[in-house]
């Protein structure tokens, strides 16, 4: 996972890592990810963007949330390089990068940094969303450095 987008799983090599179980409120996010698009919710009242998707606004009781397409651009807010696996399913992946990405629209999300030189990862580094089709049903949103 650290150096390149993983090859899709096969019957001989099934995907064993935990998968998201979409909830009613988050299904549009995961559906869009399968189409390699990044959707966020936005508050009608405050204009603030929101991640993760929710059924109610955390900004005000009389607020409503709408779905909007995000740019996919962001920066590394913080990260760690896992030298030992954080869970057994990642045992063959070390080292790999887990990062909190600050999206251009404001919200933070956790993802892996892929297609990158791990020694060059820095806080503040510009990144862009990239989509990992880990199973036929699930696409994870990851990030890679913006080519310079």
């Amino acid at each position: 996972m650290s150096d390149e987008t993983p090859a899709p799983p096969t019957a001989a090599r099934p995907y064993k890592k935990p998968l998201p179980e979409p909830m009613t409120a988050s299904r549009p996010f995961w559906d869009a990810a399968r189409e390699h698009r990044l959707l966020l919710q936005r508050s009608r009242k405050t204009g603030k963007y929101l991640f993760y998707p929710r059924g109610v606004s955390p900004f005000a009781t009389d607020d409503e949330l709408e779905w909007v397409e995000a740019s996919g651009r962001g920066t590394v807010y913080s990260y760690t390089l896992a030298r030992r696996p954080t869970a057994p399913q990642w045992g063959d992946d070390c080292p790999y990068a887990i990062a909190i990405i600050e999206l251009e629209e404001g919200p933070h999300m956790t993802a892996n940094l892929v297609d990158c030189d791990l020694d060059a990862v820095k806080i503040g580094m510009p990144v862009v969303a990239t989509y990992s089709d880990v199973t036929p049903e699930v696409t994870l949103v990851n990030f890679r450095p913006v080519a310079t």
Partner: protein
Amino acid sequence: MSLRGKSAIVGIAEFKPMRYTEGATTLGMLAEVARDAIADAGFELGEIDGICVEGFAEAPFEAPATIVEYLGLDVKFAEIVDLGGASGAGMVVRAAAAISAGLCETVVCTTATRRERRTTEGPKRSASAGFSGRRVDRTPVTEFDAPYGAIGANYGYAMIANRYMYEYGVKPETLAKIAVAQRYNACHNPDALFFGQPITIEDVLNSPVIVDPLHLLEIVMPVAGAAAVVVTSARKAKKLKKPAAYVLGAGGHTTHRSITFAPSLTTTAIKGSADQAFAMAGIRRRDIDVASIYDCYTITVLLTIEDAGFAKKGRGGAFIDEHNLQFDGDFPLNPHGGQLSFGQAGAAGGMSHVTEAARQVMGRARGRQVKKCEFAFVNGNGGIMSDQASLILGRNS
């Protein structure tokens, strides 16, 4: 309404941390350590009219009732406290509040974690599965963090440490000093897991990096154990005519579950919790004689020193460099060894900061007793800087 001086810790019990249990039940451990704490207070079972307990997997429903029945208690106040590592301190906050409000007079607060060796049948089962003991976790954490390997706590504290280094900077040697001082303390505590095993700053920095930038010796070792305290009214505590640790201040603060959504990685919820406790107690930071600070990682201690107000934001590293953190130093920190060197037995590890602070204030800490210990500050931290609970304990009401 203030809780100041209205209740006190009068009984303490704690199991020596152990790497593994063999066939123990969490219920049995919770009950035994609670019974020991009640006996330590000199109370009969019939004098207990309240209980605080953590959720545990063996009792997915009605955990307080399960232990009440097992111990033969009859209570007016039965509470489950689900604040992760802050549960121990949080139980004392709730016990003090219930006593102060007249709901009950004497509350036993009990925590325990068993830990069986992995068997060939599969991975070990978690001994403590949180609120209501539910094993099936289906929350935003499992949906949006776990698929990326953001599992457990190590990665989150590593991201906090990296962000702190980016915003304020701290030398690895400074963080290592925390682990070394606590190991010194543990070498004066025969009950500590790492008793008799001193370490140096070089040992810490030469230990393997687990999650960049955290080294192995900056990370707690999970163990099995149990800890309990008895909290009673000040009126009843004074009748006992033996040392008590009065609850002078209490606070709590919760802002997030996943570190992804923490309002800040470097200014934590500890600030609100500690400020509330100090304001209630009406004492200054420099009045504190011993700091019993949750230390799942060295970075946790640095952030707590700042956010609890012992040092200004960004000055925690300098504070650590300038002070001697040993129990016999000028800023005694976690005299029992902290969880880094005493051992982290789940919520009982968090409770160890309460038991140690109470012991110090009562003058019962033997070979690691802090001299002239009038006031102790306790901070409990749950999750990844998620749940905070703070206490100020004092020798007098």
